[in-house]
């Protein structure tokens, strides 16, 4: 396994070396590009002065809060729509009208209504996270083995117990997958909101570094966001395997 990992790392490492050599040979003078070594130094400096840590906290706090809020709403609605078909038909037009709205398109309204800060970012991330979780959890509930539902009827379980004891456990692996998808979206949307408007977090730091003509620092933040995204997904994959066993990942490229 670790040998395989090294092979997979060979291409990016070779690219970095080539970039470094290329940058030094051509003596680039750019306000948008920097050699990898300068990026590494800038990253280390940003850690040393603590600025990147504060920015990471702001971004992750907003992304997770938005993910939890949007996830809760999406999950509740998804399960309700999955169970009650008439409710699903009633809500279909509303949901299909709201779902295609890019969350970023809400930015001007969100800025004027909520102002800068966590609140605006959390609301926009939540809006983006509701839909994948809603759609996938609705599908997960619908695809539950019908006999399980029959069992719950035979046992005369109350609707609350039916959700708690039968539906959620049966749909959980797929719901978790939806959550994993939404986590990636949450990070992307949080950083985008910061780049566009919100003066906090990693996205705003990228913009500040760019405007301060520090391409090395800007790219350092970019690399760091990539690492966070990678770590986030890796952590969730481990959690998924741990919680649901390898079956939960069947059919996925790992």
């Amino acid at each position, binding site marked *: 396994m670790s040998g395989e990992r090294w092979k997979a790392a060979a291409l990016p490492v070779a690219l970095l070396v080539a970039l470094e050599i290329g940058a030094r040979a051509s003596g680039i003078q750019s306000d948008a*590009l920097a050699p990898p070594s300068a990026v590494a130094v800038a990253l280390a400096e940003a850690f040393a002065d603590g600025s990147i840590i504060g920015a990471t906290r702001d971004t992750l706090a907003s992304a997770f809060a938005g993910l939890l809020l949007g996830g809760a709403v999406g999950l509740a609605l998804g399960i309700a729509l999955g169970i009650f078909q008439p409710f699903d038909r009633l809500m279909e037009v509303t949901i299909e009208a709201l779902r295609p709205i890019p969350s970023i398109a809400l930015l*001007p309204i969100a800025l004027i*209504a909520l102002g800068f800060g966590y609140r605006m970012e959390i609301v926009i991330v939540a809006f983006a996270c509701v839909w994948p979780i809603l759609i996938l959890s609705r599908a997960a509930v619908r695809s539950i083995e019908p006999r399980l539902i029959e069992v719950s009827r035979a046992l005369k379980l109350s609707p609350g117990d039916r959700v708690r004891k039968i539906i959620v456990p049966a749909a959980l692996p797929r719901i978790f997958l939806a959550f994993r998808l939404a986590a990636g979206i949450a990070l992307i949307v949080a950083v985008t909101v910061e780049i566009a408007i919100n*003066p906090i977090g990693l996205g705003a730091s990228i913009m500040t570094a760019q405007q*301060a003509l520090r391409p090395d620092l800007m790219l350092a933040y970019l690399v760091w966001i990539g690492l966070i995204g990678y770590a986030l997904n890796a952590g969730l994959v481990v959690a998924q395997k741990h919680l649901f066993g390898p079956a939960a990942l069947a059919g996925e490229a790992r």
Partner: protein
Amino acid sequence: MKTLAGVALAATLFAGAAQAQNKLQVGCTATTDCASAMVAVDEGIFKKHGLDVEMTLIGINSNIPAAILSGSIQIGGPTSTVFLQAVDGGLDLVAVAGASVMNANSNANITAFVRNGITIKEPKDFVGKKVGAPGLGAFLHVLFVKWLVEKGVDPKGVNFVEVTFPTMADIIKSGGVDAVLTAEPFVTRMTNAGLGSIGARYAAELNRTEPIIFYAASRDWAEKNPDVIRKFRAAIAEAAPIVNDDREKSAASIAKFTKQSIELVKASAPNKSEPVLKAEQLAWWIDIMASQKMLQSKVDLNKVMLK
């Protein structure tokens, strides 16, 4: 901006709740225009006048009107064009104090920089060229169009695209545009890198002294806080001479706020600080913006200037 105007009503409903802060928040972009506020923070001038001010770095100038209305910042530094378009769109903003004005120095910093292989001998040579502006309808673009018109060139013949300052050097180098509307320190950086030459000094030729950026607030907040406004104006009036005369102090404050290196900041003089804002200065902007069809209504000068 029109979408913003549409929700202005909703904004005033929310704004009240968001304003419950003790600190006075002042929002500006990473330019030297708000240097008077930066210096007033660092030199303790705001404190001396009894104000606790925190400055917020805002990425894009056109976000400032919305940030003011949301209550995230109480005072912001929009450019004249952003401010007037916001007011024209229905946002209830007022100008409270002057920040920066054009003068011989700042005008000399502004140029149209053309890439190698393009020669501009006279204004009409820009016809048919692709010209990058940092923002369409923003300060430099409006000035350049005004210059073209004064020189008898139809601006419709020029193909304008948006190019942000930090990407200008690369785009000029790659030939993606023929010219960029830019300012120092980018002119010197691109000249030293041998990417091209100065095609026109349009701001110097226009030779204006109107405001570039001024401090603005929402009418609602400004009318409720006359005391804060009075103190703010006094502090800015005290800080402005430091910006204009003390390069060391102003450069240190600008570098601190914009996060630019001190060498970069010192490479060019900050734009001139002028704490007093006069109605007739805005009248010039209203005239040229109206002639460029950027304003739909007649902006009432007496209304947008806070007494």
